[in-house]
């Protein structure tokens, strides 16, 4: 590939490139996780080639021991390293929740700032692959509810690279959630800048500009919102699509500016609706903009059920374009 050609790649390759860049920039960066070294390079091939390039000390396979993986990352981070720990699938987070919420998140505060935990927990998540209830769920809400944790969920390859490099060099622990369905699907491929490309945390991206309603989302559901915006445009409704990129920190200024303009908002995410981040954001919008809103903020999320296996049921769990369009219509009555 020459430098003049656009660098189009799937998200999985962009994430690999981010880790490659970080490993090359700083010898304190290392990766640990189940199966991440060669020959497999991870069950989703996201770390393909990295152990060959940087060695199995810095790209190290672990036992299937999530608490030990996160604990080792916490200790090494306090001692000056920048670990990137992989939890293969987000549903496995429960096994190491104590290490995340009680330790990674709280240690800076509990120590009065004497010790810090600059680490990243990469994990893959998302329904739509027939993996059933324990290999499909978005669980970001727990981390948003754990002061001390940052939470990033990218929606495209360039952001995935730029946000991951920023997360690795961030001073605090970051839960980095990778939408599993987007890893290698060419439909989600995009142009990715070369080299040390960084996207700051806490800076939302206005993906589509509009004036009638704000669709606020993150991760793969940004694409659902974009499709909804196209469908709404055909009906003469101009929807603005905001990609939050990170939900801690959350770019509330961008959200409030958009909703001040449109006076209507729909918050969209894949995690179950009940007590999801949408509930928090919807509440914040009401608190700030109640008097100026034309209609109550609407939420669209996963159904409040364990994720079903059968493909028709699994599809029904997921937010659909039609759900977003219907939610917009509810703000227009």
């Amino acid at each position, binding site marked *: 590939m020459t430098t003049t050609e656009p660098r189009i790649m799937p998200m999985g390759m962009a994430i690999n490139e981010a880790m490659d860049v970080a490993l090359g920039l700083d010898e304190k960066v290392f990766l640990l996780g189940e199966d991440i070294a060669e020959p497999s390079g991870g069950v989703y091939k996201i770390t393909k080639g990295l152990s060959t390039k940087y060695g199995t000390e810095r790209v190290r396979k672990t*036992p299937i021991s999530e*608490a030990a993986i996160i*604990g*080792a990352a916490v200790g090494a981070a306090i001692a000056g390293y920048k670990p990137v720990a992989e939890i293969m699938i987000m549903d496995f987070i429960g096994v190491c929740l*104590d290490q995340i919420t*009680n*330790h990674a998140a709280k240690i800076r*505060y509990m120590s*009065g700032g*004497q010790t810090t935990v600059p680490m990243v927990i990469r994990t893959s998540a998302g329904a739509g692959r027939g993996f059933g209830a324990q290999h499909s769920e978005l669980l970001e809400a727990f981390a948003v509810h754990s002061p001390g944790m940052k939470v990033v969920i990218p929606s495209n390859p360039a952001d995935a690279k730029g946000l991951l490099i920023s997360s690795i060099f961030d001073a605090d622990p970051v839960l980095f959630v990778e939408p599993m369905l987007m890893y290698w699907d060419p439909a989600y491929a995009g142009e990715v800048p070369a080299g040390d490309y960084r996207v700051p945390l806490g800076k939302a991206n206005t993906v589509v500009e509009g004036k009638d309603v704000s669709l606020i989302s993150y991760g793969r559901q940004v694409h659902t919102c974009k499709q909804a915006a196209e469908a709404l445009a055909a009906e003469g409704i101009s929807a603005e699509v905001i990609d939050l990129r990170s939900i801690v920190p959350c770019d509330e200024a961008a959200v409030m500016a958009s909703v001040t303009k449109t006076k209507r908002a729909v918050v969209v995410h894949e995690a179950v609706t009940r007590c999801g981040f949408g509930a928090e954001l919807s509440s914040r919008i009401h608190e700030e903009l109640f008097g100026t809103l034309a209609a109550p903020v609407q939420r669209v999320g996963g159904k409040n059920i364990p994720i079903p296996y059968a493909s028709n049921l699994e599809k029904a769990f997921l937010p659909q374009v039609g759900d977003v369009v219907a939610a917009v219509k509810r703000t227009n009555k």
Partner: protein
Amino acid sequence: MATTNRPDAPDRDALLRMFEIQQKIKTADERFRAMLTSGQVQLIYYSPRGQECISAGYAVHLRPDDYVVTIYRGLHDHIAKGVPMRELWAEFLGRGTGTCKGKGGPMHVTHPASGLMVTTGIVGAGIPIANGFGLAAQLSGTDQVTVVNFGDGASNIGAFHEGLNMAAVWKLPVIFVCQNNLYGEHTPMAMSTGVEYISERAASYGMPGVTVNGNDPVAMWKVAGEAVARARAGEGPTLIEARTYRFWGHLMGDAMEYMPKEERKAAMAADPLPAFRAWLLENGHANESQLAEIEDKIKALVDDAVDFAMNSPEPPMDELYTDVYEEIIK
């Protein structure tokens, strides 16, 4: 402790350092308990009294740049690793001058300058984190070692299993010190643990395991020294089960109905610290005036720390939102 001299004992310097650490722990503990029972202070307090030999026994082998991880019953480990008494007291009393600016408290004392890296309130959780310190030392090519302390109860939680296995697989320079005080909270070990000796579990991880009388300072010193030397040499981890007894139950105010009165009475009668003191005198390792001088010095140290902490202000309110993240995120 045996009244005869011991050919395996360390030199006088190490013996007196161990005595000094133990005396500091005892003096600080007695003052905390006195201030609690008199109502001068209110705090959640887990007395380490009875277990001080263990901390002294490993601490004399450590350098300032070695790491220690401990638990909510951690005062003895904090003192042994050299956390300054003033800041330690201030932290226990929730003052802005504490090690953690009063934001951590007794269950989260941290003082990296002394190598006291983590104090956790979660049973077993320090074990996987200690591996991270060991891994950092291994990756950096230093010969720093990490001592992680936990109780007998922690050997029944998943983090123990995951952590010891990983340490063995990676040959990490970590010493796992199980301070077996025979009770996990209110439940005797026999009712919660399927082996007679926790050190037996080491075999299943492929690492050396040893049970030692944690109330015998010389034996504890020897076992800890071997484990530290092994770790420094890159030969991997060791599980030490140090048998001991906690004199004051799980936490202060505990009615201790679950501890047989006779058992506790016998343990307190065999208090390891006075026994160690007598042994030092009988075997010519020190004379009375030397030990009295150490004791007086420590009394003054603790008096000073109490004054410092009691006269220190609470943390300023502008500390509320700091140290959550590098920047303030509300």
